[in-house]
């Protein structure tokens, strides 16, 4: 009703003690700024760590697992169907790692609307020969262009040009750790022995660095054609189809569907990397807890200042009530004072939070393990700003609630007579 009047009274009271107001607002500003910075930085790190694995992990992986048949012949046979059969020492039969019908499956998957892209992969277990020593390793046969498009392969090739793996015949991109062990420079030739005992010479065209040492000591990459040649297999031979979806969340459903449709093993990213999600969640939880604590502390600051203000303004409250302002009006005035401290302190806090984030974002952060990172990672998600803003209003509302109620209950007679 008289909101404009209430607003003008609150404003005058705030500005009359602008130093106090400033201190209270600075408290809110500081906590909101820290809240934003903390969450942005924490989640930036989270995203980076997740990206380390998740960016290059297919959302759905189709493969053939070597395992014993679930339908053993004795269970299928008619006369033993109703009996309880004990079979001991079950072994895997003649299963191939190869995906049957790989060509049509790849085509069908690529045609699926939910799929961003699919690329074949081929794993070859090999020994790298370094003098008399043999070092076990894995060569991943990949389609370099698709792998770069879907799984950021080029980001992890720290030396050499990734496309050379395709363009140079019999070439290989070595994991950095492996290259160090083999003392292989770019342009050198390394000797590999396949599991079947064939020996090949491959030319090193680049280094690959994932940021995870264990991987870099074992993994290396070659074009799919080179790997098929190593294994002595035809051009349609592939052991994995890696699928990237438009929406990561759909992975489990899609995996289940493909497993049934193509009669194949399918693994989704959530199952394969459950531990990363857990780690991210816990880190987020901690940063939210710290942020909220900061805000609550700021809330107590406002509570104190408002309480003091009410003792100072007893005369004003009494006179307002004597001249016809009700307890509700007085309550509104003080709530408005609290909320404006929260509102303006909060807005400035959001700006400062953004500035602090930008400063952190520009601090150099170079580490050999993370070739793509040059500065500290920061996440600028709008959600944190919304949460910070809303929370600043909520805490200041509660900080103002009790002082305002106290002010609304001031008995003007006591003040006016008591002087």
């Amino acid at each position, binding site marked *: 009703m008289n909101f404009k009047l209430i607003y003008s009274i609150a404003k005058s009271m705030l500005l*009359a003690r602008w130093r106090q107001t400033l201190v209270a607002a600075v408290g809110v500003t500081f906590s909101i700024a820290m809240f934003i910075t903390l969450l942005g930085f924490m989640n930036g790190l989270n995203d980076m760590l997740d990206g380390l694995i998740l960016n290059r992990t297919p959302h759905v992986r189709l493969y053939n697992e070597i395992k014993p048949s679930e339908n053993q012949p004795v269970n299928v046979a008619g006369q033993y169907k109703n009996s309880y059969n004990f079979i001991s020492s079950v072994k895997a039969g003649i299963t191939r790692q190869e995906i049957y019908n790989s060509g049509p499956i790849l085509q069908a998957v690529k045609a699926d609307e939910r799929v961003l892209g699919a690329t074949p992969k081929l794993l070859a277990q090999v020994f790298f020969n370094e003098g008399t020593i043999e070092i076990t390793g894995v060569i991943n046969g990949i389609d370099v262009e698709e792998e770069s498009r879907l799984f950021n392969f080029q980001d992890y090739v720290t030396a050499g040009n990734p496309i050379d793996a395709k363009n140079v015949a019999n070439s290989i991109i070595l994991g950095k750790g492996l290259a160090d062990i083999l003392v292989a420079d770019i342009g050198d030739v390394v000797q590999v022995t396949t599991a079947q005992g064939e020996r090949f010479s491959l030319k090193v065209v680049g280094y690959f660095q994932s940021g995870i040492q264990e991987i870099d000591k074992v993994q290396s990459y070659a074009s799919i054609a080179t790997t098929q040649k190593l294994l002595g297999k035809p051009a349609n031979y592939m052991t994995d189809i890696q699928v990237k979806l438009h929406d990561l969340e759909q992975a489990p459903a899609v995996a289940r569907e493909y497993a049934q449709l193509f009669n194949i093993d399918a693994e989704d990213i959530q199952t394969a990397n459950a531990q990363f999600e857990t780690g991210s969640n816990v880190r987020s939880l901690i940063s939210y807890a710290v942020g909220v604590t900061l805000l609550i502390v700021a809330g107590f600051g406002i509570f104190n200042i408002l309480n003091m203000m009410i003792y100072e303004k007893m005369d004003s409250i009494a006179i307002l009530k*004597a*001249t*016809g*302002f*009700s307890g*509700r009006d007085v309550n509104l005035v003080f709530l408005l004072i609290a909320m404006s401290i929260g509102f303006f302190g909060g807005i400035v806090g959001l700006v400062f939070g953004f500035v602090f984030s930008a400063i952190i974002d520009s601090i150099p952060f170079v580490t050999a393990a993370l070739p793509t990172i040059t500065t500290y990672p920061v996440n600028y998600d709008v959600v944190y700003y919304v949460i910070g803003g809303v929370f600043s209003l909520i805490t200041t509302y509660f900080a103002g609630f009790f002082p305002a109620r106290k002010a609304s209950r001031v008995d003007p007679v006591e003040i006016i007579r008591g002087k």
Partner: protein
Amino acid sequence: MKGSEEKMQEIILEARNINKEFHDPVTVQVLRDITFTVNKGEFVSVIGKSGCGKSTLLYILSTMDTDYTGELFIDKELMSGRPDTELARIRNEKIGFVFQFHYLLNEFTVLRNVMLPGLKLGRYSEQEVEHRAMERLKMLGIDHLAAQSAYRVSGGEKQRVAIARALINDPHIIMGDEPTGNLDKRNSDTVFNIFKELAEEHNQTLLIVTHDSEFAENTHRIIEMEDGRIIRS
């Protein structure tokens, strides 16, 4: 005083059997069976020794103190037992206050102080309220202070600002609790003359608690209290 004969009959304020007790630390009856009426245009003073209950009575009459028994009528409406917000509205519209200590809001200018109850009432637009406030300041000869901060004007001037504020909503009655108690002789006389002029020229009803007998002698009617009772009215 033309036309005051029939106006005299119009009752603005009526108290019926008002009793009040203080319970802390021991029960003391401060008001006993107070019954009287105030008619429109009357300039009434309430006198009595300290502690006789005259201020207590004023705060009950002003609707700010609701802890009493008996009945209070303002403008023929029963005030007793009404909720806080309604009483606040009635104070805003029908009662003007002048206190011993010049309670102005220091955060505002003189003009804004006078305007506040008018803005709260919301009967007129902000421009009109401002115009009315200026009129009243002019009438009291302090329009040159309008733009000053409230805490910068002198005591006597503050009391005149308070009177202007009391007048802003054309109240039925102006109540004063020792309005000259804190002023020197010259300022007291000024304030008294303003009250007198209001009563006689503007037919304004006034109820003033005072212990200044000279002040009281010059009012139309004196209500004298002793030990919580009215002994002369």
